[in-house]
């Protein structure tokens, strides 16, 4: 999980916006806090499951890299849990990142690498590279949605939709390379149409843009395909939602380490072996 | 309607002094470019049956325009043309009239490039109620008459200028017309071919006694006719009988 890792977590944190019920008032213009508040239903239990397919292209790659990833989320009151699991290809199958944000705005969680390696997300860990890439854990795990004092930074039309731009600034002492995040929000769409993350020197680190929107059963639009661009590495990742439900009852147990480790073992015991294709894991 | 006139005409040579007026044109005017150019300024003429007439004048004098009017290829802006007393303006289907009555020979030959000599000559015949066999026979006779039997299956592009004009002449006789109109028939030919074509036209006139009107700028060509009408600036200015 390298640059793609960033992508996932940004996706996840973008999803942290949850289901939108954006109220529109006439004048005066809403404050950032009001816009964001409108994005989060309060005091309800809700979950989602997303099946995604990631295709990464970068110079030096002969063929685009493809990954299958399952993302599950669950909100209970003010606690928000998200789990990303890589399903395929076999070399990285089973890797997972779990994050939990609670009402006091702290983030906790862990990184799991099969068969047994669990690394908790501590403040020290945040500055270490993730899975040996040039991206730190903190870069990925940062949940900018929790940063204090977001401001309305303007309006812009993106893909013929009027958006409000909200800016987040990293609080002092945060261990992160990313100092500033801009988010484009349209009232008709459940997630931001665009997210841009900037480094301390003002350079663009990452841009996530919505490529394709689909109508959900609630007649709300959801982002079905996202493009993640990391200029420094000239890489592009297209994240396509291939299935799942924006409104699913995901049981708590799914977010436990046991369950996360468990599904790999299920495979090992349930399937018949064939030479050269057994999954890694204890026999 | 379809009488076999050719035999009658071969036996009895035409008598130019006959008083039957074949064509009479009065006060012909023709404008082009919405009145900016006047090609004919009141041309008159009278042609007797069986006459061989040349209309001669410098280029731009309106002689081609006059010929086109006489051949019902165009309509005058003013004036009248009568064929044996009948006004051309009264004729509704001019194409049918042309098919029966008039044969044309053009300066640029105007043969159909995709058809052979034999087929080209038969083209006008499609308007006559003759069978395919009839048409072929008549065309073969005509082609023989102009001396091109050995080229009968050739395409026009394989013929010289003179040969093409001969085919055009044969074609003009296809429906046994009573009038032959020739617009600068030797204009695109070298002097040898030109002579041969004029000989041919003369022979046709003698043998068939047809009324023939030829338009030319060249006085040496005009001299082959029995009567020369001179034109300048859209009007007839003089008349000559070179052999009288």
């Amino acid at each position, binding site marked *: 999980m390298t640059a793609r890792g960033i992508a996932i977590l940004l996706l996840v944190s973008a999803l942290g916006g949850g289901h939108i019920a954006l109220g529109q008032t006439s004048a005066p213009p809403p404050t950032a806090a009001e816009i964001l508040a409108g994005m989060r239903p309060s005091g309800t239990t809700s979950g989602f*499951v997303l*099946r995604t*397919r990631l295709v990464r292209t970068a110079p030096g790659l002969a063929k685009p890299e*493809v990954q*299958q990833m*399952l993302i599950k989320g669950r909100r209970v009151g003010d606690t928000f849990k998200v789990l990303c*699991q890589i*399903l*395929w*290809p*076999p070399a990285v*199958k089973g890797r997972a990142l779990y994050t939990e944000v609670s009402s006091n705005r702290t983030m906790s969680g862990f990184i799991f690498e099969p068969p047994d390696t669990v690394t908790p997300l501590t403040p020290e860990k945040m500055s270490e590279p993730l899975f040996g890439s040039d991206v730190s854990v903190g870069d990925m795990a940062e949940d900018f949605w929790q940063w204090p004092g977001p401001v309305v930074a303007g309006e812009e039309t993106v893909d013929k939709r009027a958006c409000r731009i909200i800016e987040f600034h990293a609080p002092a002492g945060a261990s992160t390379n990313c100092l500033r995040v801009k988010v484009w929000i349209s009232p008709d769409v459940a997630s931001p149409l665009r997210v841009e993350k900037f480094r301390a020197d003002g350079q663009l680190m990452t841009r996530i843009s919505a490529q394709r929107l689909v*109508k959900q*059963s609630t007649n709300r639009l959801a982002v079905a395909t996202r493009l993640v661009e990391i200029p420094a590495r000239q890489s592009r990742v297209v994240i*396509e939602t*291939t*299935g799942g439900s924006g409104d*699913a009852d995901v049981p708590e147990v799914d977010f436990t380490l046991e369950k996360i480790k468990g*599904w790999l073992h*299920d*495979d090992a015991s*349930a*399937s*018949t072996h*064939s030479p050269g*294709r057994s*999954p890694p894991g204890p026999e | 309607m379809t009488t076999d006139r050719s035999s009658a005409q071969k036996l009895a040579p035409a008598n130019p002094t006959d008083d039957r007026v074949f064509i009479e044109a009065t006060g012909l005017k023709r404008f082009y470019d919405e009145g900016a150019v006047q090609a004919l300024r009141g041309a008159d003429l009278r042609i007797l049956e069986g006459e061989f007439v040349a209309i001669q004048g410098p280029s731009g004098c309106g002689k081609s*325009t006059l010929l*086109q009017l006489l*051949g019902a*290829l*165009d*309509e005058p802006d003013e004036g009248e043309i009568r064929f044996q007393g009948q006004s051309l303006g009264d004729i509704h*289907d001019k*194409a*049918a009239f*042309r*098919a*029966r009555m*008039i044969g*044309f020979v*053009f300066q640029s030959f*105007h043969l*159909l*490039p*995709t*058809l052979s000599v*034999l*087929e080209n000559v*038969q*083209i*006008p015949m*499609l*308007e006559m109620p003759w069978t*395919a066999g009839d*048409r*072929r026979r008549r065309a073969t006779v005509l082609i023989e008459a102009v001396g091109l039997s050995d080229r009968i299956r050739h395409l026009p592009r394989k013929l010289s200028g003179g040969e093409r004009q001969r085919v055009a002449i044969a*074609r*003009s006789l*296809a429906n046994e017309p009573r009038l032959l109109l020739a617009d600068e028939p030797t204009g695109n030919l070298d002097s040898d071919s030109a002579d041969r074509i004029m000989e041919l036209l003369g022979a046709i006139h003698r043998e068939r006694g047809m009324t023939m009107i030829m338009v030319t700028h060249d006085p040496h060509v005009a001299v082959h006719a029995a009567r020369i009408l001179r034109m300048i600036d859209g009007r007839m200015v003089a008349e000559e009988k070179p052999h009288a």
Partner: protein
Amino acid sequence: MTFLTVIAKNLLGRSTRSLLTITGVAIGIAAVVAMTSISRGFMKSGNRIYSAHGTDLVVSKLSSQTPVPPLFEESLGDQFRALPHVEVADPVFVDILSVEDKPMVLFFGWEPGSYLWQHLKLVQGRWPTNDTERAVALGTLAAEMLERKVGDKVQILTGEFTVVGIFESGALLENSALVTTLRQAQEITESKGLIRHISIKLKAGTTEQDLKELYETVRTRFPGLRALSANEFMESNLGIQSARVMSWATSAIALTVGAVGVMNTLLMSVFERVHEIGILLAIGWRRKRIMAMILLESVTLSLLGGIVGIAAGAGFVKLLQMLPRARGFIEGDMSINLTVLAITVALVLGALSGLYPAYRASRLQPSEALRYE
């Protein structure tokens, strides 16, 4: 030599112009034929899935928004077995998934004893028979696409399935599908106890009237569910409807482009012959004959172009079918109807394209026409 000979010689003598015109017409017609053939093939393929099974009715929760119908309780299916005239009512799970690095494929889950397995032809291995076994059978095209043989593993969502068999189906879309048992499909998609539709076989001798009553019963006893005939079910699918509209739209565009191209070519060729028309008028041809000549030439060229276009369109579709991207999804349907339609279009175009210029040209004064170079 006859009038028709003249026309033939005209067309042959100007071979380049004739060929260009025929090509122009052929392109337009080929486009129409190809588009229509593909869309009809798509419809037929979809229909065949259900007719191949011998399914008479499909019961589902109707929704036009999604490519697959919404989930509903499996237990409702049991109640359908008890309805009059129903011979068999089998629950079906179906989904569209992205598998490994491939884009979307059809994923089916059927009960081991269901009649739905019977229409498939097993070419290698065996069927998944056990609800607890993580086994899957692949259609021949799916096996090709994923490059798997019997005994290999394939990752479907969170489960690693073993390929136990490879099958062939009369319905093209099924050949690129993955099929497992209902329980496994439900488990892996985390939809335990849920299905997407019920496939029903009716008892022999069910009349139209019986069918009507059955529809009513479903409507009143199971609000939210609808019974549709296999055909209707296919038609109600959002994907099918979109494909239909798309193909209609592209056919219309192709036809317009083709028509404009054809008419342009024919008009050009006629206007080029104004001079010749002048000669013909001068040497005695009546206007009617000239118009007939131009008309016949236009129609002949369009007819030839139509024939070439039909062959080219059909050939193109066959070629498309061989491309790896399209395998399993594109199937042409060249019916007699389509051929007749194409020929008619070509003839009509030819006639219309010839008529106007023919009329205009023959209305000229010969002297005017002769003046054209």
